[in-house]
């Protein structure tokens, strides 16, 4: 049994349980994402994968919305794109510096046209660096609480070394009891750095280590 839906004017059939994001991607399309990593369960936090659905009171997050029979999806819906862009603008406003050009965050900002002056400037994350591990570095000020590192450590690696911390604007991540990766159950696999969309967690390359 399959579910018939329409995405950007193209009719398609998907298996029950397929999310809108999976259906969009199966057709070769895409929508920007920040908290989504296809190796992990959808999380629904970043609200950047918003799409329009005919008859819905507002845009929906493609990553956590299951396809329903007869659904008509517009990945270019103006309201959905406006909300996604505004959300990315908010994210940029909490970082003390613009994201590095090669990061996913920078790419998503470019795709959504978030450039120039920010409409809602305000409090930014304070600089706090944890470089106690030989090659995993955590720059807390670059963390956007997408939860990808925590889920990589939980779902992919099973090490449970990372956690979300704080609440509201103070939300962030840390390893173990906040005493660095080495004092935690971290197995140094690097899955967290691999999935991080902002370089908040990075693997210091041998080259960079040589320069220290």
């Amino acid at each position, binding site marked *: 049994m399959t579910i018939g839906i329409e995405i950007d004017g193209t009719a398609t059939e998907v298996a029950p349980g397929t999310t809108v994001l999976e259906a969009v991607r199966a057709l070769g399309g895409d929508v920007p994402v920040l908290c989504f990593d296809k190796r992990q369960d959808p999380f*629904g*936090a*970043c*609200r950047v994968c918003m799409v329009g659905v005919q008859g819905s009171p507002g845009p929906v997050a493609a990553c956590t919305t299951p396809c329903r029979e007869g659904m008509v999806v517009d990945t270019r819906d103006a309201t959905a794109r406006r909300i996604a862009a*505004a959300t990315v603008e908010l994210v940029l406003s909490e970082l003390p510096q613009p994201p590095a050009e090669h990061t996913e965050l920078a790419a998503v900002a470019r795709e959504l046209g978030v450039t120039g002056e920010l409409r809602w400037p305000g409090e930014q994350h304070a600089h706090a660096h944890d470089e106690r591990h030989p090659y995993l570095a955590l720059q807390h000020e670059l963390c956007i609480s997408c939860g990808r590192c925590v889920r990589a450590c939980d779902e992919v690696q099973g090490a449970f070394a990372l*956690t979300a*911390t*704080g609440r509201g604007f103070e939300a962030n991540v840390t390893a173990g009891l906040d005493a660095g990766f080495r004092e935690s159950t971290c197995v140094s696999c690097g899955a967290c750095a691999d999935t991080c969309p902002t370089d908040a967690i990075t693997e210091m390359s041998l080259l960079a280590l040589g320069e220290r």
Partner: protein
Amino acid sequence: MMGMSHNLVEIVRRHHEQDAPTALEVLKEALEDHGEITDDDRRVAAERSGLPEAAVYGVSTFYDDLLQPRGRRHVRVCTGTACFAATGDVHVRQLAAGLDVQLGERSGDGEVSLAETVCLGFCHSSPAVRDGDTIDAGPGVVERVLEGTTRAASEPKPQSVLDQPVLLAPAHDWKGLRRAVSTRDPETLLEQVKAAQVRGRGGAGFPAGTKWEFARNAPGERKFIVANGDEGDPGSYIDKVLMEEHPALLLEGMALAAYAVGADHGFVLTRSEYPRSKPELEVAAATARAAGILGPAVLGSNFSFDVTIVEGAGSYVVGEETALLACLQGLRGTVSARPPFPAQRGLHGMPTVVNNVETLCNIPLIAREGAEAYRALSPGGPTSGTKLVCFNERFERPGVYEVPFAITLRDLCEDLAGGLVDGHEIKALQIGGPLGGILPGWKLDTRFDFEDLEAEGCMLGHGAIVAFDETTDIRALATHLLHFGAAESCGKCFPCRIGLRRAHEMFATGTPVDRDRLEALLETLELGSLCAHGGAMPAPIRSLLAHFPEELGLA
């Protein structure tokens, strides 16, 4: 639920089967024992609960109670909306100055600490302060705290306007449960509750019978009933009255829900801000157990049901059902995307009904007297049953009242609550909690019902009615509401986590607020947020923009 770790939930489930405490319970014990949480406490909590140390660390940095430093004397000042309406937050500044300690801090010598709390549920007698274990409230409270002569404030005296009170009946007889387990099968009870058209009283108004049916039909080894007693709405003390004065009614409602959906255990999540709730419910449960009403053979039938009472640790968003389930499992109280709904995958991954306390308290009458009798309670409008409302200290006769739906706010505010004290006038009302819109004083002829209030950009919500008098500074009110919104954001979804902070900053700075930018931010919150916290915090701000724009300091 998408976003709650399946691995952590499974760890919690397996340890629960071995009667292990949750990490949150262990951390709360440590706090009660020595006033702060150390890394050793976190290691012990990890050991006993089975959670990884990192996850315990995450929990310990989420809840207010675990974060606030405690002195030997710990003073918690209520910064709820009723207290704001009473003093404009003057009581907060006076306490900080008098105790010589900043809000959220502990004195250098460790003697005294002052923390914000929202809300203590003494809104009929604001402002309220909790000094150690004593909650004092009303005129002179600040002076008494500073003199060290605090005394327990009087509890509200609830009243019903009905000839036969439903939710506030003076005596409790378990007749509904007795009738159900002896003469009806579960399907019949479920059909009755559906026919009674019970709408959820927690705020969203979702039909309880439909929710029960989902849970009944969902596959699962076990099923659970969860009573949502996390009545966090500032200005609301309805569930407080039900849990503390009518605990058996709630337990009967839970047992009926369990019978209808095929559950064998229930949990009540109470608030740490209401220290009496958990003990009162535990006494009522023990009494019911001793009488053979709860336990392995409910009233001699082959239906088995018992309850566990769990106290939270300070978080408004834990009132959202997925966050509530996270808290019950001792995890960080963050919201998860739905589907799957709790009725499919809830506590310990099992089908779970999460109903508000008042919703469950509506069920015994339906089981006892039937759906027709229940629907007849509110003859004037579309909604069945009765509603508890509560009024803040600005009113002449504040308190909790049981009323029919569809009466006007004028009847409620003027006839029942007697208008405002000292000849003050109602400038505006906030109805149904912090996510409810604000009704200007010139619209009191609006009917108190779901659709009527929605048409005014307001909501029935949980039924709190907070009046602001003519002296209220509207910009200060907007700042107050957004401070609450930002402080209570769980931090999971980006629009709420950052957007409420920015909205608060726009008003708190004192500079003119750019209306276009504000409205674009409100739209992002409304359409982008994961749950109703970020989604509806703009509602009262929209009301103020519509009715009092000249008082907001807009550019």
